[in-house]
């Protein structure tokens, strides 16, 4: 059997295995174990570990590393990620890839230390000033996180974009068995800054921003077409489809299995890429579906908006979208099942 490992340590090790050699970050609960682990692990492999003076500075330190073509990453939690947005926006503007692990803690402002999914809208909409997106990947297990971290770096390099591994306090803090890929060696990106001035550098003042904006739109369209990821269960005959990601998605996976065994025709879409949102999954749903249910670890409903927007593009645009609010903690299978019965009995009003 595989060794047990703590989530935050697994994230860090996965990045190392994916060829990352540079980390800058700032301590914050519940993601600090990532940098604690790296403070020893990165020097061991000849990489660079910097404990920065602030979240913002860590992102700007990464800017220098990424502009140098080095595979680099950072980690934080919710309010800490807010502080990084300035740098994330600037890196997006400079087409610099990075991986940022957001171990979400629930809440607004300082928030809480509880697990949650309260950063969905911020992370999937870019987050900082400007007209950009980052890849947002959400794992439902440590094994999936390990795979998504490698994939996230590759996506970033391919498109010249940042990637956010959007996970939750609970996944960062829990332990489960996990296997890691072999160490990968990654060369510095072609065209990066190394002091030799081998490539022309256009000042931001002289870039053709209008053309770049048009090109960005085309790039994002191509990403939406080619990079959606999701997991699904029993969509073909589903009367109701539950949509949930991360650990809520894990709970929902179990709940759907049990509901099926109990005779309910329930399907599941578990988005793995939160951006691009897995719109294609919805094309596979039974045309006579009665409704969609978003299960989220927040109170106000965030992903539910993307579900409703996605349905606008399908022939199911009139179908109701419900939301189960779980502001604190991971919804249990029991809770999801009970809420489902309430929807079925008409006791819960749709959001859209």
């Amino acid at each position, binding site marked *: 059997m595989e060794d047990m490992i703590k989530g935050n340590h697994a994230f860090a090790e996965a990045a190392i295995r994916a060829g990352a050699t*540079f980390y800058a970050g700032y301590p914050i609960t519940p993601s600090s174990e990532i940098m604690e682990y790296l403070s020893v692990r990165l020097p061991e492999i000849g990489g660079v570990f910097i404990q920065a003076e602030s979240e913002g500075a860590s992102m*700007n330190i990464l*800017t*220098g*590393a990424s502009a140098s073509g080095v595979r680099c990453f950072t980690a934080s939690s919710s309010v800490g990620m807010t502080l990084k947005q300035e740098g994330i926006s*600037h890196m997006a503007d400079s087409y610099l890839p990075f991986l940022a692990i957001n171990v979400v803690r629930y809440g607004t402002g300082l928030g809480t230390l509880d697990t949650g999914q309260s950063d969905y809208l911020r992370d999937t909409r870019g987050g900082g000033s400007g007209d950009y997106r980052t890849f947002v990947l959400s794992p439902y297990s440590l094994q999936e996180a390990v795979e998504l971290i490698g994939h996230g770096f590759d996506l970033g390099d391919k498109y010249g974009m940042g990637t956010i591994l959007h996970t939750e306090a609970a996944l960062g803090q829990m332990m489960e068995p996990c296997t890691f890929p072999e160490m990968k060696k990654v060369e510095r990106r072609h065209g990066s800054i190394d002091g030799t001035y081998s490539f022309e*550098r256009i000042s931001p003042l002289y870039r053709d921003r209008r053309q770049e904006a048009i090109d960005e739109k085309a790039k994002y369209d191509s990403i939406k077409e080619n990079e959606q990821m999701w997991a699904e269960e029993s969509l073909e005959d589903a009367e109701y489809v539950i949509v949930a990601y991360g650990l809520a998605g894990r709970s929902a996976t179990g709940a759907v299995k049990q509901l099926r065994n109990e005779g309910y025709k329930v399907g599941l879409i578990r988005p793995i890429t939160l951006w691009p949102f897995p719109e294609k999954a919805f094309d596979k749903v039974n045309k006579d579906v009665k409704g969609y249910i978003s299960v989220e670890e927040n109170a106000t409903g965030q992903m539910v908006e993307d579900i409703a927007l996605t349905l606008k593009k399908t022939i199911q645009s009139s179908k109701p979208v419900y939301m189960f609010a779980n502001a604190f903690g991971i919804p249990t299978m029991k809770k999801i099942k009970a809420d489902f019965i309430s929807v079925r009995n008409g006791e819960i009003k749709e959001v859209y």
Partner: protein
Amino acid sequence: MAIAKKVPEMLSKQISFCPGCGHGVVVRLIAECVEELKMEKNVIFNVGVGCYSLATPSIEADKFDTLHGRASAVATGFKRCNPDTLVISYQGDGDAYSIGIGESFSAAYRNENITVITVNNTNYGMTGGQMSATTMPGQKTTTSPLGRDCNTTGMPIKFPEMVAATFPNAAYVARGAVTTPKYVNQLKKYIMNALKAQMNNEGYSLIEVLSPCPTNWGMTPLQALGRVNKELVDYYPLGEFKTRKVK
């Protein structure tokens, strides 16, 4: 016998500052030093946000425009990934001492092996001459139109003195000016010392440059030079605050 002097090759394009602005001299001196050290193909100009952002199109070398105030953090990333390359962080007083004081101070604190050059013109030039951390007592700016009141805004910051006094490991700290031939020649020596310190892995080096801003000071270029020489050098003494241990 006259000595030949030519603007370095890497500065092939015209620079677009206001008449009498000091940035052009600072950029030229840095380029001269880099050229004399034969590091033109092994240097990264890391530039903050201010009027001097206009300089990067004129510098034919590896360069990167950072966010406002964040240059010393970005330079840290560059240097750690390119340890054998000269990394020069070019910033202004607003950039390095106000919005970027955390990044500036922390790069010095970590003793990053980079050279930070801060050009102090006692105001935010690019945005229209607002009061900065280095604005002199009584100085009129667009956000201190009655003259800077230090009772409510504090006294002008002296970053080089702070670094020299606080960080015993810092390699080299100096303040120069561009307002007399003597000062310019002296400044070039300071820059050369700083770059050599970096190439020798001696640690953090910092040079502040007092520079005229005729446009925002409401002066002619010559009056602005005169203000630096008469007023500023009294409060901001020129010279080396920390010399290299290795010569």
